[in-house]
């Protein structure tokens, strides 16, 4: 699980004065589903293009499967869907995959397998131009699966899919990882990443802000306590744990939900007024916006620990 499949060091891409990707160091390990998270224009696709050798870094290095990004020996073991599906519109879905299978020197049977895996078997004979957005996207994923590559890079794979299609795509990605394939997935859909990724890298304005497991990113579960006066409540809470935050007049106490009754008893015993106690369900979304939004800095300043 720990062997790196993709490793970048100081990866940077400049377009004139604009820095699209700024000193990104990310590591994708074998067998994991790595979520690459960021708002639109954060530099996700540019980073993935460098990982695939489609564009050259301005500086820094990328190593993929122990080789140079984009080198023939490496790319034969990588499948990719980058920035939307790119196919010949006049060819059928099946013929488009046949063209790619010829480049990869694969048997025609692999094309049928790939079509079946994305549930396009029945529509494989229709021309690509007639496909819906979701079908085009699924064909793109089928192309990435051709030849059972060790590393599969999927850039926003659920783009254009309906809810059922999205669920299907998520279970497909989970299956791939279960089968031992490594998946590097970019997305701006946080729920999706939270659900299926082992580790995530958060990128914004070209910089990798954080790289960790989803659990680490979400942090310890907290109890959200509204009690007055706040200063006294804080003192009580700190008898239980040192990790207490104050946000908008509420305490965020790093305690498991089972310890809520004890905390409430202690607060009431000191004569404090307890208005509410609930579990703080911090989603990846909250964490993400804290990290990427400018306002995050202000909120952090209120932190007491």
């Amino acid at each position, binding site marked *: 699980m720990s062997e790196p499949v993709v490793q970048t060091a100081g990866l940077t891409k400049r377009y004139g004065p604009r820095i699209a990707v700024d000193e990104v160091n990310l590591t994708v390990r074998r067998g994991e589903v790595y979520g690459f998270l960021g708002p639109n224009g954060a530099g996700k696709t540019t980073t993935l293009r460098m990982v695939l050798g489609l564009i050259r870094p301005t500086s820094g290095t990328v190593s993929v499967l122990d080789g140079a990004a984009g080198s023939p020996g490496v790319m034969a073991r990588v499948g990719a869907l980058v920035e939307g599906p790119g*196919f*010949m519109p006049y*060819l059928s879905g099946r013929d488009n995959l046949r063209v*790619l299978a*010829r*480049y*990869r020197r694969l048997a025609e049977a692999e094309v049928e397998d790939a079509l079946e895996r994305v549930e396009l078997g029945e529509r494989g004979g229709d021309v690509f131009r007639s496909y819906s957005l979701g079908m085009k996207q699924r064909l793109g994923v089928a192309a990435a699966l051709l030849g059972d590559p060790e590393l599969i890079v999927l850039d926003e794979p659920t783009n254009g899919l309906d809810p059922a299609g999205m669920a299907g795509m998520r279970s497909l990605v989970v299956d791939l990882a279960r089968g031992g394939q490594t998946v590097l997935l970019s997305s701006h859909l946080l729920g999706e990443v939270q659900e299926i990724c082992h580790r995530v890298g958060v990128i914004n304005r070209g910089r990798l802000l954080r790289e960790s497991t989803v659990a680490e990113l979400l942090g310890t579960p907290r109890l959200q306590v509204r009690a007055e006066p706040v200063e006294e409540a804080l003192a009580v809470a700190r008898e239980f744990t040192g990790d207490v935050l104050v946000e908008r007049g509420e305490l965020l106490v790093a305690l498991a939900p089972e310890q809520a009754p004890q905390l409430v008893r202690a607060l009431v015993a000191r004569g404090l007024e307890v208005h509410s106690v609930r579990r703080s369900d911090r989603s990846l979304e909250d964490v993400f916006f804290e990290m990427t939004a400018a306002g995050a800095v202000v909120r952090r300043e209120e932190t007491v620990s």
Partner: protein
Amino acid sequence: MTTMLASTRADVLRLRRWPAVWVVGAAWLVLMVLFGYVFNYLAYRTGSGSFATDGMAGELLLRSVLPGNVPETITAGTPMFGGALMVVLGAMAASSGYGWGSWKTILTQGPSRTSVVLGSLVSLTLAVATTVLASVLLALGIATSLALVEGADLALPAATDLGRGAGTAFLVLLMWALFGYLLGTLARGPALAVGLGLVWSLVVENLLRGVGSLLSWVDALTTVLPGTAAGSLVGSLGATGGPEGAPGVLDTLSGTQALVTVLAYAVLLPMITVLVVRRRDLA
């Protein structure tokens, strides 16, 4: 080598199933039949001169549509509309994939960029060869039919003459197709590439040849241009150029010099294409 073969097989499938490729090939055949046979034969039958046949005696008109003249017929149109159509074919084959994003998909499949481009150029070469073969067969079929109808000379051209004709047509069309492919690669979009290619092949070279009569250095420059080489190579086969012959057919260069120039383009253009694709960012 195996990856190049794989790339060629893949690109052949891409081109073979592309309706636009067939349309370009068919357009060439239709134009060849119109200007090589239909107009000449109608002029011969009706005895009236047309813009292309003005001043030609009936005997000459009839001879031009007989099997013996097939080598000239299949080459006469190559410097002009044949070349222009092949520029369109090459430009399309190279540039459409940038807009569709299919080059991006193809270049992440494993083969090196050099293999992919060379494979694509080989498949383009095969498309041009198929077009020439179709032209030869079609021309022989029509010429033989007309000879039978007219009770005229059925003798086929000598194999060497036919081979030279087909080879010349192939080289000229291939050079223009490679020229189009390079333009398409540089422009990354069919509209600009086709537009520039057509303006160059149909207009600019002719204008430069006009200016060449006034300025000697322009004249020297025109001798190494692809249109001059193509026109001279066809002219060296005996096809008539000038105001009374097929447009674009020239006698500026000797046959050997023209052949060397065309071959040099057929080597240089792919080399530049490969260099451009190898170095570029596919954003």
